[in-house]
């Protein structure tokens, strides 16, 4: 029997209790907590998806980016100088932190942003728990899908709201947009959280033809930017979207502060280290070309709907890291089981030369070959060399992918130049092309499939069908 505290303490110290935490729970909870902490700034939060267009979602980025204006296009009634001062003050700060609340039909969505001016990095947490990191210096984007637990890495698109170079591009576009639409501005003193501010009201009528929120057409956008009169720093902003009767459809309120530090990386914002990384960074795929058999690209004069030769080498084709030819050595079947010349398996043997012994010749009329990739792949490009010893054009070239060898399930047509549908596979929209040593590259846009089928129906020299090689560039499907 223990007599006092010390006795009892000794008993407790001898106990063997497993208190080791589960790392998965720890990470998951961290993510949930950080996501919820953004919502702690208000009393209620409703996750809203759908009705607010991208422009509204991007409003906070516009506001945040306004501090990044490199040049102000035109003049909005003398506001240029004031904005320039605001920009200068903001860009002296290491970090900008903005919390925006979007309101629509009684619901609220909260996003949080950090922007690091020196390195052009932008972090964002949305109220649904998704977290993103846009690095405008390197042109890369990371996006954590909270619902799937995956972290996707990809290239920033060139141009557009989220284009590489943004938010600088974005604000230039924004200002240009306002100027072109004759936006008007008003300045007046005001208060924000007991702070003396100068309020810049910018009103833009008829902002965007066809722009709507839910089913209501937006007739006017009003921006209220508030800058500290002493520091010139922007401290808050409100964006209102109004209908034709001047009723507010939706609005976004943003508060801005300037912390000394910000997130070091996307993991610091709650992305679990265990999140599965899906790398969709684009690199040029390495297509080894065979020797050319003729110079230039002679044009067969009898062929209609013929695309003009590029006159130079094809641009590199970009696909996610790890994309390779997944057709090499894979089994091939053909509608013509007994080729006139060569063997069907030569189509995926890696030999792309146009010499004798490197091609297979199939019979006349519509023929097809089918490659079984033996697994489902994300297919980014298909390159086909029919016969490039001469400047020929093959007719009714149709390229399809499917989930089954009979092409009955999930059939997708990637290329079709059968413009009069004589082959019965649908009316094609693509042009005829001249065979060269570059082969024909068909963009498969990451389509998922196991089987690839190519049709043709004779060529500009004879009525036979030929294949030297078919390459399929893809990646295994991420499970």
């Amino acid at each position: 029997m223990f007599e006092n505290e010390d006795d009892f303490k000794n008993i407790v110290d001898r106990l063997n209790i497993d208190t080791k935490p589960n790392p998965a729970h720890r990470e998951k909870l961290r993510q949930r907590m950080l996501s919820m902490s953004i919502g702690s700034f208000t009393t209620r939060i409703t996750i809203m998806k759908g009705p607010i267009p991208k422009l509204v979602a991007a409003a906070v980025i516009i506001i945040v980016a306004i501090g990044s204006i490199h040049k102000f296009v035109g003049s909005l009634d003398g506001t240029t100088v004031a904005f320039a001062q605001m920009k200068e003050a903001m860009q002296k700060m290491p970090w900008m932190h903005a919390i925006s609340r979007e309101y629509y039909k009684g619901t609220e969505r909260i996003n949080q942003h950090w922007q690091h001016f020196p390195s052009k990095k932008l972090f964002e947490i949305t109220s649904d728990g998704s977290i993103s990191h846009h690095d405008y210096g390197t042109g890369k984007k990371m996006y954590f899908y909270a619902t799937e637990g995956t972290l996707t890495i990809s290239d920033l698109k060139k141009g557009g709201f989220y284009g590489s170079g943004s938010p600088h591009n974005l604000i230039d576009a924004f200002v240009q947009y306002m100027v072109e639409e004759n936006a008007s501005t008003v300045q007046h003193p005001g208060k924000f959280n007991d702070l003396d501010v100068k309020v810049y009201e910018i009103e833009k009528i008829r902002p965007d033809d066809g722009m709507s929120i839910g089913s209501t057409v937006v007739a006017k956008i009003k921006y209220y930017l508030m800058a500290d009169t002493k520091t010139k720093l922007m401290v808050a902003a409100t964006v209102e979207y109004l209908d034709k009767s001047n009723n507010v459809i939706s609005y976004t309120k943003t508060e801005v502060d300037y912390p000394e530090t910000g997130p070091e990386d996307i993991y610091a914002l709650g992305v679990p280290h265990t999140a599965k990384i899906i790398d969709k960074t684009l690199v040029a795929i390495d297509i080894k070309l065979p020797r050319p058999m003729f110079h230039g690209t002679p044009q067969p004069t009898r062929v209609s709907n013929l695309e003009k030769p590029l006159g130079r080498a094809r641009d590199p084709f970009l696909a996610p890291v790890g994309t390779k030819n997944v057709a090499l050595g894979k089994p091939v079947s053909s509608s013509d089981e007994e080729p006139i010349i060569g063997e069907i398996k030569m189509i995926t043997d890696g030999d792309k030369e146009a010499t004798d012994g490197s091609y297979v010749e199939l019979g006349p009329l519509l023929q097809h070959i089918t490659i079984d990739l033996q697994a489902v792949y994300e297919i980014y490009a298909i390159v086909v060399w029919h016969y490039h010893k001469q400047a020929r054009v093959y007719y009714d070239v149709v390229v399809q992918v499917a989930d089954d060898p009979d092409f009955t399930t999930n059939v997708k047509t990637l290329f079709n130049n059968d413009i009069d549908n004589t082959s019965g596979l649908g009316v094609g929209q693509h042009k005829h092309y001249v065979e060269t040593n570059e082969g024909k590259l068909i963009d498969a846009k990451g389509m998922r499939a196991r089987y690839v089928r190519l049709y043709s129906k004779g060529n500009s020299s004879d009525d036979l069908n030929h294949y030297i090689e078919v390459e399929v560039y893809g990646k295994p499907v991420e499970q």
Partner: protein
Amino acid sequence: MAESISPGDADKLVVRARTDAVALGRLYELCYERIFRFCVHRLFCKEIAEDVTSTVFLEVARRIRAFPGQTEQDFANWLYAIAANQTNAYIRKTSRRQKLLDEAARAMQASTSRSSEDFSMLDWPRLYQAILKLKPEHQTIVTLRFFENMDFEQIAKIMNTKEATVRVTLHRILKKLRNHLQTIADGEK
């Protein structure tokens, strides 16, 4: 493992965490293990402890903006207070309490230790059963004092009471614990 950080830096984190998710995330890393351990000691089952730990930190996320403390110690006391409330709320429900007792009884049967009569060989399931017979607030004091090794001053702050009250209460609690352990030992004879 929790990262190490100087007390001054931890205090700055606490102030920043009200409006900064990054700072809050770092505080979480600093405190998670302590709170989880506290919950395990109060709730016996790790799965249940995970659930309640989640509740604690989600409560923190909801209320961090209004947290008035300035130091890491203030934050830790606040966390333990929330954790104590959440664990007490959990075991106040009879069915849940019974579930914990059943779990401890199962573990006790599987234990190779001798009976609770020999206190030098007392195992965790038997002791937990005895602790669970105490009032929830008294369980909190036992856990903070003997499992978290806190002094009376900190326990008093967490429980929002006087230090002297904690001292006197603990004396009574230990007397009750002896009786509960004796009852459990008698039942095994």
